[in-house]
């Protein structure tokens, strides 16, 4: 499997500096993940705040460099790319941001954000061609160009702005789109439309999508695979069916059971253990499993060394000593869990 984008053993540590070594916190802990060239799919990176999911997204897009480890695009290390290679990387890996209110410069009409990539990346050979491409992109995400172009951002709703964000990413002719919580600030009734357009992009244009979220229900609806992060570590990964319907890691179980469902039969659920909230641990304190302090099933060994990824059933791995009798994942790359069926 040739990887289009590969994160290899990347860690990101914040804080510290010459005089504050003990204040460093780990946002990402030796993570390896790759997006294959063939079979573009939609994968979810799920977690709460502090899980490292946004950091991982920024690493993948090249907006941030890892403290250790590397990021490769089309086989080349992002840190040592030539200007032209960097340009290609920048164009082919596109973001969609969470906040539709923040993602537009209030000084310009929304046309600005759609015209700029065509100009900078040289994707249109004339003004008419540019206009045509923009209109096509808008229509593809379900907007009418006449009602969208020429307007200022404050004249459009959050849902419309978010869709323009998708259209913008599309105009760059990307191979990968990293969507950071694209619908969390959008009304429920409009979410479906935006998510549907992401599915269309993946299916019809072969774009791989990384869907960053804390909302497992939408992840379940549109993603094929999911990676669950907790405090910078992968705790569970696999196909959405496995991970969300039958979670094997206590943290994933906690996440799934906390989802409020509009379903009569599931009302007034019992107290789920796992009280307390995640607080990023300083580097020095990272011994053993990050979730152990909150885990109802924690054993002595959980505090001694961090659990590797075990494979209790096909196409899913969980980093939990509860499954210590299962085989360990053979390669470090998380994606291999569902690509090849690891172990």
């Amino acid at each position, binding site marked *: 499997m040739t990887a289009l984008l590969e994160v290899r053993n990347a860690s990101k540590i914040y804080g510290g500096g010459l005089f504050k070594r003990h204040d460093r916190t780990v946002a990402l802990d030796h993570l390896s993940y790759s997006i294959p060239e063939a079979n573009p799919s939609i994968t979810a990176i799920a977690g*709460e*705040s502090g899980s490292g999911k946004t950091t991982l997204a920024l690493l993948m897009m090249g907006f941030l460099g890892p403290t250790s480890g590397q990021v490769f695009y089309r086989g080349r290390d992002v840190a040592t790319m030539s200007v032209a290679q960097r340009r290609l990387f920048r164009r082919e890996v596109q973001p969609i941001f969470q906040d539709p209110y923040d993602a537009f410069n209030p000084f310009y009409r929304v046309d600005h954000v759609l015209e700029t990539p065509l100009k900078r990346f040289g994707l249109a050979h004339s003004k008419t061609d540019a206009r045509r491409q923009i209109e096509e992109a808008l229509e593809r*995400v*379900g*907007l*009418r160009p006449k*009602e969208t172009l020429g307007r200022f951002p404050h*004249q*459009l*709703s*959050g*849902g*419309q702005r978010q*869709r323009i964000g998708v259209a913008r990413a599309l105009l760059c002719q990307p191979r990968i789109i990293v969507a950071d919580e694209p619908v969390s600030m959008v*009304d*429920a*009734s*409009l*979410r*479906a*439309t*935006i*998510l*549907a*357009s992401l*599915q269309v992009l993946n299916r019809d244009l072969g774009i791989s999508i990384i869907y960053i979220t*804390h*909302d*497992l*229900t*939408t992840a*379940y*609806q*549109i993603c094929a695979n999911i990676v669950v992060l907790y405090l910078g570590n992968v705790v569970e990964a696999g196909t959405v069916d496995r991970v*969300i*319907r039958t979670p094997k890691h206590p943290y994933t179980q*906690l*996440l*799934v059971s*906390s*989802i*409020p*469902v*509009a*379903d*009569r039969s*599931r*009302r*007034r659920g019992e*107290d*789920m253990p*796992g*009280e307390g*909230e995640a*607080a990023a641990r300083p580097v020095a304190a990272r011994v053993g499993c990050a979730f152990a302090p909150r885990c109802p099933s924690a054993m002595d060994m959980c505090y001694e060394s961090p659990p590797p990824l075990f494979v209790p059933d096909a196409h899913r791995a969980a980093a939990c000593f509860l499954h210590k009798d299962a085989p360990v994942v053979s390669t470090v790359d998380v994606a291999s869990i569902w690509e090849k069926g690891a172990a």
Partner: protein
Amino acid sequence: MSPEREVLRVEDLRVEYVTSDGPVRAVDGVSFTLLAGQRMGLIGESGSGKTTLGTAIVRLLRPPARVTSGRVVVDGNDFLQVPDRELRQLRMREVALIPQAAMNSLNPVMRIGEQIADGLIAHAQSARIPRRDVGQRVGGALAQVGLPSHLANRYPHQLSGGQRQRAAMAIATALQPKIIVADEPTSALDVVVQRQVMQTLGRLQQGLHAAVLLIGHDMGLVTQFADVIGVLYAGRLVEQGPVDDILDTPRHPYTRLLIDSLPSLDEKKPLRGIPGLPPSLLNLPPGCPFAPRCPYAFDRCRVETPVLQSITLLQKAACHLYPAHTNLPPLPETADLLEVAPPADEADVAVL
């Protein structure tokens, strides 16, 4: 079971915002009743007027918003007409508001205990709490929300997000009000913390036997908590009734489409949004405000505004399909997953 008494009755409340382009009707004739100990959820998306409604009920509206008509009856008195001196006594003791992003409204330079005490002492004269008992009451208020009493000595930045939200709830309910209005209490929180905060709200409600009005846009969250639901659209209540009935058989097309648009964990189904956009409150279309987006709309809908009417004993809906029908007919074919553009004059959008 003896019938509970009514603690809150909102009668035909109308709230307007004065703008340079004319008045905007954010709340347009909303009426409902809340019984003691009852949990009511108000579901609305952006532009529905839900926050304006919550703020209006506790009389915390600021210009350019103003109440143009209607009453909010609390224990027999119109809360909106109560003179300012009495208002101080009634607030927090009778009616309390947990505002949106309450955890951000904590004073960063005051300890939590001091902030709770602030509220208590401000009303001490009226409720006659002797100052020496304040410490005890602070501990009690914290216990009500499941926080250990030693947190009273901490500053807000020393608490986690969920703890801060619960501290804000403690401040609001320190005087054990009979009615709690909670406006999106979990909006900025992670899903695990959200659950804890909602559980806290539930325990708080049970402990005080208070009536709770929970306002939100997350249907799952609201229906998990509430006994009775109201659905707001363009400043109007379009459906109302017990939560189980509404989830089972929604009777207003908007409610039905809203429920349908929610993703579920049970099976992967094609995603359906609601086509179109919420209407501009400055330029409301004639007739039913939902008509432009409604798959069932017919001529009468575009001319005459429907009134909230009883469909069953407990369920009400504002829709011209009734009383001719008893239930919503099956949805007409809509293969359209993407937006259907509204007519040109509706293209202006209001964000509330």
